């Protein structure tokens, strides 16, 4: 019981109190670097700006001290409910994402994930689908035309991309044979032969045996490269950040569905968006980048190696620290990638957005399911578990 609370608190604190404020800083700094500006460096304590790291704190003080406005004619109850409905899904989504493997210390065995449920991936999709309500209600309850237009756009966009988001990762379920994120992470802690498919045609000629030595980590991105691109696109569109920010398009709709929010209620929308960036990074890392897995060094290799020198308990501890560090470095990389995308691409037009979803991603994800099934059948012909697609 204490373990569950500790694991939950750990991930909640890391994501909301460490990552989310830091990301607001990263966003400002990275945009500044990419646009050749000096960037956030005005907030200071006694003349020290700490590279602009004080800005997140300044943001919070500003948001907390602002007047909390509710527009006349707004539905007060729903207006207050919307930011909460926006933030809660973002906060609870990380529950199923494993940030470490299963470790044994004496008699206690524990897995570093807050809730290890059988349908972990479905849980992520469920949470994603519930996140729609925050923006829809915000737009409707504000009784403002900007908000309303933003909400209509948000609904259509999020419903469309939910469909393709679910379809694009079916290939991943098939390859790993599980919906459980901890199982997937364990499955990604191995390697596979890149040229294993050659066994299908003939035995390798003499002298080409070295081909068998070329191995890649058994990661989703190598087994399902197309699914990775499609899923990343869909999940970023779900978060409604540029280039998919039509629901809040600043140049057309002021701020879209949350135009009529101020103070900490606006802060909740703002926070939800940045926490979602971390959640996206965590989900993509767990599904496609091996989660906590260190490439070419499986858990047994690390524990066995360290245990031979320093004993087993210490080896498990070292292994745990390496895995957690590895997971969060992947998360940091994916956050950086999202920032790069966010500051590189201009906003889509609305018809382009819908075309991308229904005419490009949907057929491609169906094709991916088809190819994966064919590839897995072929792989079973060679040898059970030799290589997948």
């Amino acid at each position, binding site marked *: 019981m204490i373990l569950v609370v500790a694991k939950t608190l750990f991930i909640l604190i890391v994501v909301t109190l460490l990552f989310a404020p830091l990301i607001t800083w990263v966003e400002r700094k990275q945009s500044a670097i990419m646009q050749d500006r000096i960037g956030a460096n005005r907030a200071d304590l006694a003349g020290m700006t700490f590279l602009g790291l004080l800005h997140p704190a300044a943001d919070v003080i500003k948001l907390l001290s602002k007047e909390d406005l509710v527009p006349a004619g707004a539905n007060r109850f729903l207006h207050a409910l919307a930011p909460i409905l926006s933030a809660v899904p973002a906060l609870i989504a990380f529950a199923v994402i494993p940030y470490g493997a299963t470790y044994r210390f004496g008699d206690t065995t524990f897995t570093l994930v807050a809730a290890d449920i059988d349908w972990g991936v479905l849980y992520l999709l*469920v949470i994603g*689908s519930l996140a729609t309500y925050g923006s*829809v209600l915000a737009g409707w309850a504000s009784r403002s035309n900007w908000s309303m237009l933003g909400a209509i756009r948000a609904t259509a966009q*999020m419903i469309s991309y939910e469909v393709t988001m679910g379809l694009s990762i079916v290939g991943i379920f098939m390859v790993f044979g599980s919906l459980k994120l901890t199982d997937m992470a364990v499955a990604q802690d191995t390697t596979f032969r890149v040229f294993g498919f050659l066994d299908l045609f003939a035995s390798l000629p003499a002298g080409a045996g070295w081909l068998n030595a070329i191995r890649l980590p058994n990661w989703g991105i190598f087994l399902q490269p197309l699914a990775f691109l499609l899923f990343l696109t869909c999940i970023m569109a779900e978060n409604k950040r540029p280039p998919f920010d039509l629901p809040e398009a600043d140049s057309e709709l002021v701020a879209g569905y949350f135009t009529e929010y101020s103070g900490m209620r606006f802060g909740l929308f703002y926070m939800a968006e940045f926490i979602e960036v971390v959640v996206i990074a965590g989900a993509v890392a767990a599904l496609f980048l091996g989660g906590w897995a260190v490439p070419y060094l499986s858990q047994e290799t690390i524990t066995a190696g360290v245990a031979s020198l320093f004993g087993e308990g210490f080896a498990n501890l070292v292994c745990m620290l390496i895995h957690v560090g590895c997971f969060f470095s992947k998360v940091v990389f994916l956050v950086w990638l999202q920032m790069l995308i966010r500051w590189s691409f201009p906003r889509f037009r609305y018809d382009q957005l819908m075309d991308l979803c229904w005419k490009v991603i949907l057929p491609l994800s169906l094709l991916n399911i088809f190819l994966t099934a064919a590839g897995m059948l072929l792989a079973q012909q060679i040898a059970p578990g030799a290589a997948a697609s």
Partner: protein
Amino acid sequence: MSFEMFLFYAFAFLAVFSAVAMIGFVRHIVAAAMSLVVTMVSLAGIYVLMHAELIAAIQILVYAGAIVVLFLFVIMLLDLRDGGLGPAARGQNLVKAVGVGGTVTIGTLVVASVSGVFSVNPLVESLPEGFGEHRALGIALFTDYALAVELVGLVLLASIVGAVILAKRKID
């Protein structure tokens, strides 16, 4: 009363209460749709208590996450801002809701007491291996019920084609 039973009755109460609220006494049509969401989520909670976790996930994903969102989308497109449910209609709806709800409840109670359902604990403990898991369900769907799945797929395809044709006629 065990904690599970407490949760069961809490979810059951929420489901029924918000269902009555939806047709009965909610002022705005959007608030009515939101009560429907509460009903859906409570039902999902009951499914989880009954170990049907996949059904619970699908329930939220499809009904709460997609269908009611579509309702809201249509409500917003039609711009039914000032309710569409006037005060007079509200009173009538409450009467209707209580009438329909009462009839259904009494009917269910009669049927249930005759058939002896009350002696059965709704939260069964002895379940077959893999009950309610996606794996068992998937295997059952694609072996024993393969024909039914294919037929449902055909019906869905037909309705998609129909929807496209209807929508296209309007555009043309």
